């Protein structure tokens, strides 16, 4: 039984084939990088795995269960959390509340508990608030819990989004260009965070452009081109693959 397995995944947008008959597997406890030139279908792949987009054909299996066709929240609760390429935090909630949102699945209290404000609910609320604080602490936002996201610098917003994803206690974390648009300090902070997560044994699938980032964080790389798998291997294997250089790296070196 493989951890996450993509079987002949295809997604069309009208006439355009964004992901074409894509199959690969990722291993548990490893950080897998998904790279490729612009428009090669990386984000679409993430969207298909997380259930945000319906697949045209093919399937995704997660820990032996077919998850294709399930709704995004069900997939999230099975243990696949994600972030977005363009940061999508909840702007009308505080940083702490942003993280708390993703803890909704941990409550045993129902609507009646909420309306009657029972002791059970209060206990759970305080437990989950502590847990959310811990997560903020983990991503380096320990003191920012009461801030509104719009008052946070870009890098912190990204970390907040990651904290929200971690709040689901995922087995697999999908990161869509986590380092995009960051300055040097922020970049270092995110790199550091991912390395720390890797140490805890969390599996990660990340889409990234920055080669430096991929080199530092990633155990295994899958290269996409025109929605198809071009190559697969360790970063150093990929680096030397002439097809990859031609399709992707080569172009950048020019």
């Amino acid at each position, binding site marked *: 039984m493989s951890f996450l397995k993509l079987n002949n995944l295809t997604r069309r947008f009208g006439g355009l084939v964004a992901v074409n008959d894509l199959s690969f597997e990722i291993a548990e406890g490893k950080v897998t990088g998904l790279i490729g030139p612009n428009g090669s279908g990386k984000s679409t792949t993430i969207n298909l795995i997380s259930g945000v987009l319906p697949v045209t054909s093919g399937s995704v299996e997660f820990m032996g269960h077919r998850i294709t066709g399930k709704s995004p929240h069900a997939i999230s609760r099975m243990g696949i959390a994600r972030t*977005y390429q363009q940061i*999508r935090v909840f702007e009308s*909630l505080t940083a702490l509340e942003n993280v708390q949102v993703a803890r*909704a699945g941990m409550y045993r209290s129902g609507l009646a508990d909420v309306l009657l404000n029972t002791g059970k609910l209060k206990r759970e609320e305080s437990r989950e608030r502590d847990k959310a604080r811990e997560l903020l602490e983990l991503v380096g936002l320990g003191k920012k819990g009461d801030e*509104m996201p719009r008052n946070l610098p870009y890098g912190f917003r990204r970390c907040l989004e990651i904290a929200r994803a971690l709040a689901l206690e995922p087995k697999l974390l999908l990161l869509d260009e986590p380092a995009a648009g960051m300055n040097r300090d922020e970049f270092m902070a995110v790199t550091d965070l991912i390395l720390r997560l890797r140490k805890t044994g969390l599996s990660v699938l990340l889409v990234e452009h920055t080669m430096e980032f991929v080199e530092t964080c990633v155990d295994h790389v899958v290269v996409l081109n025109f929605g198809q798998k071009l190559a697969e291997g360790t970063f150093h294997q990929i680096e030397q693959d002439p097809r990859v250089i031609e399709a992707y790296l080569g172009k950048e070196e020019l």
Partner: protein
Amino acid sequence: MERFKKVIPLLAVALFLVIPLVDDNQYHVYMLNRALINCMVATGLVALTGFAGQMSLGHAAFYGIGAYATALLTVRVGFPVWLGIISAGAICLLVGMVLSLPSFKVSGFYLSLVTISFGNIVWMLIVNWHSLTRGPLGFPGIPSITLGTQPLSRVGFFYVSAVVLGLMTLALYRLSRSYIGRGMKAMSDDEQATETAGIDTKRMKVLVFSLSALYGGIAGGLYAHLSNFLSPESFVFSESANFVAMAVVGGLRSIYGGVVGGLVVTIIPELLRVKGWEIYYLMGSSLAILLLVIMLPSGIAPAVQNVYNRLGARLGIGGSGSGSNGNGSGNGSAAAVRGDSKSGGR
């Protein structure tokens, strides 16, 4: 300090509650009763639109279904009044669940069109289903609420509705502070991100639609027993628009938005009902509401709260002190008029 901060709002509520005891003008009491009922519908819309981001321009339908349901049950079946009102709420709750189904597929402007259509359909059924509603002839002879054997006076009705509204507001308050409320607010910010944060947004929609339909239904039920007479004109589209206007004027994102807006929007046209103004007052009141929306798009309640907080800070009783307190105060709405179309994230 914190306790002191709560004194003034409580005082305001207490002052409001003694009005009927001090002012024996029955017209004023009647209008306050109407206002309280409107507040209930508006509070339901605050939950639906302000918290969960689902637009409804058809809430007069729930108000109408609730009103006719209790009218029919009490007059034709012989239910006691209180049971009639509860049943009206329950029926609306079910209808609200059904209306939440289209919201799985459509949102924003399209959802508002769906709800307008729904409101029109319900209205036309009220007009045309003669055997049930007597159609345009109106439905007379609806009993008043009784206390023991005595019919409840208007002052009594005021306190009954105030308690009901208080309970509704309390329920919304608790909901908004819980994990469910946070999920709703998240959903109104970004539905897809909420889904991927592990929240079943469909369930959330069913919940919030039925909640706000329940509020509308109970309000309608109370209205039926206050006016003792129903006719279809009270449930037309412009009433739905009026309810939304109440929620917006009061403050869509504030727990108290519905209450404040309901009071203000009900009272404004009555204030303008001045001698010789019989053709101008509606123009005046719609202009007043328009100006309120333009000047205070996030509503009166957050604005007052802001002023109050700043005043408190200046006097040194501001508790935590800082200007931005998380809930409600002037976050405005998530999406600015322009440029809020989120790119699909491909």
